[in-house]
């Protein structure tokens, strides 16, 4: 332990030692080792999630907050850059996070660069990047299904919007762009089959593409009338149960689409989240409807969680919800209702042995409920993100 002549160094008044306290603690606290940067476990605990901070006040400086949902005192484990309407993917098997981002040479102007940045899950340091050509990446409020894996996670698909619509195919292993698939009139990317994807189209159809081993379109196929966009529009972000995407409509109808094969197959028997009891999801009083940004989630057992608001009306679908309704899509029945502590915007369920329902609220607070009982467990406060909008369970 070194002592330093302080007044020469700092020119500040040096406090007097309190000798009584010094006797109580005869040895000073030890010097601490510098530099010192925290490292994360190689495999993240299952209570950890990534929360996307859109950061409205500076959209160009979006972030991913890595959050331990079981830690009320130290929930924030670190930040990953997610610049300018970014999107993210996580590959725990490779220990990598991928962000699709947009940059300008002079912050707001100058040369535009779109790129996928590869981050190490243990250090949160960048490992490399893949430049995306032509500055056409789709920029919008965070939709998970504009940046998706395919080909067993070896490739990524990036949605483009100029406003012409297309999908860029990227080989994450070789770190290069393979090609681009035009997709006029269709939007969002739902990986389908072994190597391909499906998209929802403006005429209500679903369109499926298979890719060859060079990333070019090998075949395509369309199934008509999957949704009625005027009367029963589906939120664009589904909850996945295996290879089935469960979508919910603005009015609470649940529609499954089987994505296991090369052609997306809508499942028969759409049903309402109010099925099985008297509370109406649409047309009743109060007018319960899904509301928020990420309004549907699944758990490991295949149950669905839908964020619901009693203030349903035209245009209410992004206003957030005050309850989560738990639905069994096999029985087509609602199992329970979970009252939230605030106005939720995004929900997700962890894959822990005792799964937790994570709720990102409009006021920036993140709350945690027991997914099985619905009981409120803890709040993380507004301590991880300015504008939490999407929750990713790795």
């Amino acid at each position, binding site marked *: 332990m070194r002592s330093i002549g302080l007044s020469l160094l700092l020119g500040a008044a040096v406090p007097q030692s309190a000798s009584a306290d010094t006797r109580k603690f005869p040895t000073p606290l030890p010097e601490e080792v510098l530099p010192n940067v925290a490292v994360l476990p190689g495999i993240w605990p299952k209570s950890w999630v990534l929360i996307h901070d859109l950061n409205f006040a500076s*959209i160009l400086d979006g972030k991913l907050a890595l959050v331990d949902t079981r830690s009320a005192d130290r929930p924030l484990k670190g930040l990953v850059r997610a610049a300018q309407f970014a999107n993210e993917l996580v590959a725990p098997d490779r220990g990598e996070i991928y962000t699709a981002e947009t940059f300008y040479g002079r912050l707001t102007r100058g040369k535009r660069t779109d790129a996928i940045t590869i981050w190490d899950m243990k250090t949160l340091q960048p490992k490399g990047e893949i430049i995306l050509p032509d500055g056409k990446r789709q920029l919008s409020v965070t939709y998970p299904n504009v940046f998706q894996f395919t080909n067993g996670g070896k490739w990524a698909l990036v949605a483009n919007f100029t*406003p012409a619509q297309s999908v860029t195919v990227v080989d994450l292993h070789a770190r290069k762009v393979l090609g681009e698939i035009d997709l*006029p009139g269709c939007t969002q990317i739902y990986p389908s089959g072994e190597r391909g994807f499906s998209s*929802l189209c403006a005429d209500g159809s679903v369109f499926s593409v298979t890719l060859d081993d060079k990333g070019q*379109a090998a075949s395509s196929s369309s199934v008509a009338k999957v949704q009625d*966009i*005027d009367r029963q*529009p589906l939120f664009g972000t589904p909850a996945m149960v295996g290879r089935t995407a469960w979508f919910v409509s603005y009015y609470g109808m649940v529609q499954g689409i089987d994505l296991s094969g090369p052609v997306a197959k809508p499942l028969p028997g759409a049903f309402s989240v109010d099925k099985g009891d008297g509370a109406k999801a649409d047309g009743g009083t109060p007018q319960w409807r899904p509301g928020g940004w990420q309004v549907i989630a699944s758990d490991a057992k295949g149950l669905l969680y839908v964020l619901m608001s009693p203030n349903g009306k035209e245009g209410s679908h*992004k206003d957030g919800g005050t309850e989560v309704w738990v639905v069994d899509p096999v029985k087509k029945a609602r199992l329970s209702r979970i009252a939230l502590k605030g106005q939720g915007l995004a929900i997700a369920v962890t894959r822990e042995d005792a799964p937790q329902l994570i709720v990102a609220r409009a*006021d920036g607070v993140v709350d945690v409920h027991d997914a099985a009982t619905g009981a409120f467990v803890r709040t993380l406060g507004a301590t991880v993100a300015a504008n939490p909008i999407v929750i990713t369970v790795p």
Partner: protein
Amino acid sequence: MAGFDKFAERMARGVARGTSRRSLLAWLGAGMTGTALLPALPVARASTHPDAARPEMTSGTPQDPGNPASCDYWRYCAIDGFLCSCCGGTVNSCPPGTEMSPITWIGTCTNPADGRAYIISYNDCCGVSSCGQCLCNRNEGDRPQVRPQSNNDYNWCLGTESSIYNCSVAAIVGTALDQPK
């Protein structure tokens, strides 16, 4: 791929083609309009400063009632973003230093004074970072991204030198018929 071309053709035919002399409506006619804006009224609450109260502004015209600095103003029925009226622009002009997006998402809002339904163009102002004032989100007529011309979640700073989003205007570009022609 021939299949894709055919599909695009089918799409184009399925949507009314506009006759406007303006590129933004011509583009809308082709069924490709989107928007640049941001989400969610509740988020706006979290992002707006508690001391951001400001005196009321008005258009000065009885036929255009309400406060263009308030999210409740009639033209904002489908807006999503920072109100340019609070950012150095007006209800229909961008702040200095920005560039107005040439293409845009279109909403329809009822003017409480004359009872007419107006077509409102929500153009984004681009090239300067987030204005940060008067975040407002309303979603009357908003549909999922699958219908770009009816979705206000796209960043519509397209066709501009920079895609950086600053704020949004709400300009009158026509009146709406109750029934299609």
